[in-house]
């Protein structure tokens, strides 16, 4: 190919790239650098604009000082904590994505038509029996002759009797069981294609509709989540009240001992592998993180078990039949956790799952064949082949999720709590500073750049340790 031809090709390539490049410069790179400049000024939309003659002043790093250690520091760090709290669901979401992708890529439904038919029939029978049991347990029976009208949260503003409300709840239970049965049946009939579609569906809908749906699910009294939890926690209350309190204390103690033993074993095993050069430092640190998480979970469960007798006594003393269900989006104790749980649900079946599916399908089958010949079990195959082979994918997912987590939370907070109940996150804070609280564009830009620095730093840390992990 001649030089002239190459030049022409280059020119045409540039011509076709130009619109995108211009768009990037004008609408992305330009504003980014302008915002950096803004963060060094006292720019306020109400004070510095076409109608005003006051000059924008260069304030150096004052905005940054104000955020990090000045008058906005308490607010900034508080919102930073909230942001990090909402990111607590990321590891769970990633683990869930991995689990789902493993399930989907394994051969769940039988391939022979006869077996498929048998399994389908089994699913139908189990579903029918379960639905019948749910109906028998929850159905309110025939309507009483005199039944006062109550407010029904399920039915909006219509006047329903208590019997009708119970019937609606019972029907919802039966429908729920039928729905689960239908999903299982579809899985048997259509295999992983159905599950891939079903699990990815929330990602197609994610955003405002999902947040509003979850807001409805989280209604403290009458929302589907608490309606389902109510009988369970009331049952626990009944069991706790009818058993000696000391039993729960003993259970808590046993839980702590078992948890401590497991954690110590894991740490000891990690130390041994590190010493014998069977694993690297990154792997050891990952193990420590897992141990710390496990210890926290065990401690939390033990504390709940320990406190159960007092909680039950207190609820009974207050004349309640059971424990109060969580006040999800309308209390400081639960609001953040509610958003985390929703985030996990949305994250499990999303793009991360697809990335893991792609990663799993790229693992050479010879590795599994070799493992089979060596007599490796399923767990050993996972630990020694799947997990290391997926390390680059996991590394990518962790980086992207961390960046997404630090940048995220805005819509959830805006739509679900309005920033109330200590749920304001950094992105919402930027919005408040820039558009609802004095139009302080300079200060808001500074917060954005501090966020950028944090994201950049976390990405570097991830890169440093993540790279090591991929080489393990």
């Amino acid at each position: 190919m001649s030089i002239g031809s190459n030049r022409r090709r280059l020119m045409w390539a540039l011509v076709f790239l130009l619109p995108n490049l211009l768009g990037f410069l004008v609408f992305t790179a330009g504003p980014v650098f302008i915002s950096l400049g803004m963060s060094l000024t006292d720019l306020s939309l109400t004070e510095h604009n076409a109608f005003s003659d006051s000059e924008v002043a260069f304030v150096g790093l004052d905005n940054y000082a104000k955020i990090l250690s000045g008058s906005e520091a308490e607010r900034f760090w508080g919102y930073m904590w909230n942001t990090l709290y909402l990111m607590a669901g990321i590891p769970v979401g990633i683990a869930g994505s991995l689990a789902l992708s493993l399930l989907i890529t394994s051969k769940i439904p039988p391939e022979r038509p006869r077996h498929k038919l048998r399994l389908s029939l089994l699913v139908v029978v189990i579903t029918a029996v379960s639905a019948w049991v749910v109906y028998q347990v929850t159905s309110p029976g025939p309507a009483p002759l005199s039944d006062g009208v109550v407010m029904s949260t399920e039915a909006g503003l219509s006047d329903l009797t208590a019997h009708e409300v119970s019937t609606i709840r019972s029907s919802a239970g039966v429908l729920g069981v039928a729905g689960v049965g239908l999903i299982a049946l579809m899985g048997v009939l259509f295999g992983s294609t159905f599950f891939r579609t079903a699990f990815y569906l929330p990602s197609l809908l994610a955003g405002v509709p999902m947040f509003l749906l979850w807001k409805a699910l989280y209604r403290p009294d009458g929302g589907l989540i608490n309606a389902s939890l109510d009988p369970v926690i009331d049952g626990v209350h009944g069991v706790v009240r009818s058993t000696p309190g000391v039993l729960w204390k003993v259970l808590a103690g046993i839980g702590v001992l078992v948890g401590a033993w497991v954690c110590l074993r894991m740490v000891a095993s990690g130390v041994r592998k590190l010493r014998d050069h069977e694993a690297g430092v990154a792997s050891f640190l990952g193990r420590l993180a897992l141990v710390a998480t496990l210890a926290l979970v065990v401690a939390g469960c033990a504390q709940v078990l320990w406190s159960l007798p007092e909680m039950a006594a207190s609820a009974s003393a207050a004349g309640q039949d059971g424990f109060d269900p969580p006040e999800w989006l309308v209390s400081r104790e639960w609001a953040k956790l509610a958003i985390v749980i929703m985030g996990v649900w949305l994250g499990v079946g999303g793009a991360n799952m697809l990335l893991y599916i792609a990663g799993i399908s790229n693992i050479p089958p010879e590795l599994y064949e070799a493992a089979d010949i060596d007599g490796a079990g399923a767990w050993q195959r996972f630990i020694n082949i799947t997990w290391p082979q997926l390390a680059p994918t996991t590394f990518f997912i962790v980086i992207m999720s961390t960046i997404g987590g630090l940048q995220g939370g805005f819509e959830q907070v805006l739509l679900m709590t309005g920033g109330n109940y200590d749920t304001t996150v950094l992105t919402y804070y930027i919005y408040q500073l820039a558009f609802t609280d004095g139009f302080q564009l300079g200060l808001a830009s500074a917060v954005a750049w501090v966020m950028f620095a944090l994201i950049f730093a976390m990405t570097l840390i991830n890169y440093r340790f993540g790279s090591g992990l991929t080489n393990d």
Partner: protein
Amino acid sequence: MRALLLSLFAVLCALTVVAHTLVLPEERDGGAVTDAYFAVGDDVEHPEVRALMDGFRAHCDELGLPAFGRFGELVTLEDAALRERYRAAFASYYELQTGRVLTDTVRLVWSTDANPAREVQMSLFRAWHLREYGQPVDITTDPSNRELTKSIVQSVAGAGPDIIEYIGASELRDLVDAGIALDITDYASEHGFGVETVFEAARSGVARANEAGEMRLYGYPCNVGYTVCLYHKDQFAQAGVSAPTGGWTIDEMRRVGEAIMSTEGMVGNPRFPFMNLGAGDAALGAGARFFPETTGAYSVYNSPETVAGLRAFRDLMYVHRTMPRPAEAASMSASTAGGFGSDVAGSAPGLFAQRAISMYIGGRWEYVTFAIANRDRVIVPAIDRRLSELTAADPEAALLRTARASLLRDVLVPLPEAADRAYRACLTEEDRAGLLHIGAVHVPTVTGIPYYAVTARGALINRALERDDPQRLTYALRFLRYLGSEAYNEQINGTYDSICGRVEYCVDEDGVSGPPRPLPGLEGFDAPVFTEAMLEYADPWQLSPYIGRGRLNTLVNEVLERVQANELTPEHAAARAEEAINRQIIANVREGARLRARWERETGIDVDALVVGLREGGEDVSLRVQIERLMRGGGAS
């Protein structure tokens, strides 16, 4: 490949041209302006318009259009094709006579909400303008840009609306500070709608003092907003309790609530007797103040009055169970919510309309909710029942059909007297018992003295018009004058859009001036309590130049939501809120040289003498204590 890409590029260009020429241009047929001419055609006095309308009648004869009685009939002609023929005939006649095209009429843009009442208000403006000035003007709303942030961002970028709607003194302050609001003081005084014509409590929502302390008018009220206590008359009657005639205490309200809840078989089976009182309002009602009377330099929120109000509020939820807790309120809400005062409050009218709540704090604008409930549950079924008994040719049936159609189209539009009488006659005693009978009383407070924090929903003029388009500015100024006119203010009161802002058009001998015949059961919405609230007990929003309303709300709400959740005692809440406000004020003052100079001039002390988090003798010394100590000249902190 290259040809394919170039073809794609060409298609994109073609689509852009199509979008630009066919989709983007607004559809303007001048119909609204023509209707304005028809609306005034029968009684307009302006000589040019009179001559035009008389000439048009003759022109119609020449064109062979069917003869008509009054011009007003043309606006509501049922035959849409014929109506369009009259409109087209008028447009061509107008062009012939004036040399101008109707579709070129100046069209003002008003950033307001998508309330259907705005259509009526705009029609009134077009007609009013013709009567007053003999010139046509058009107007349209821009509901998607109603929000303050958008108004400011677009206006400073030179793309703002002509007339900007805003809520309250804090938004007015932002718009004035941004230099967007046009000072209309002189024009308004000259044309008889100066600040003195507005309810005193609402004046801070339309005017601001300048550096010299002189009040300057920037906006005019579209209406003024506040809430009273609405209650179900039938539930009160069944419980054997009477509604208070003046102010009443929260304890008195609670006892009434207990009587209602303990009455066997209470209609509607209410779940709670009371709803929708906010923590902040309870404190203000008890006499709490954010700032001293004479200065906004520091907060005095930590007071016995605040504590009493917050305690009463908390006890209503957690001790007496008179009012639902936040979680209960959220559950009862059909829409669910983030917290009190947000969309929980939005669902309250629905719950109240069900009688699930006996008393709740709501505004006069909620008339429409209850009117629709009564219409759908009782009135229309009663009309249908009566219609089924009549023959189609029966004159009563025609009246009932008119009433039914009008009520279903817009429940707020007053009916012709005969149709009104006809449908009321359909209602049996049983029907009337099924109607919502709603009364209005004062909001209960700790002291028994009513308190109302009032502000205006106002409109102001984008100052860019002064520079860019003096002709539009003239029309925009006239629009503000229209907001002060009798026609507009009567429309506001008559359609229960809260109450109007101009005192002289608001009050009559029975209370709020309204339509002559409110719907059955809802006569209470013209109760004297609405005017008493404005004239005797209303206060403007408390603002400080040293802290924005948005940040003030954030700081206070962060504390009050913990009182709502019963996580913080009223004493701690009041102290924390006050200290948080004062810390923010001090931080703001220290950061801005101009603000600092003003603050130090006002207080007479050096702001650097204050120590955040000061402790003396093992005790915290609040900023307020330090400020007051220094102001009294008693020792340095």
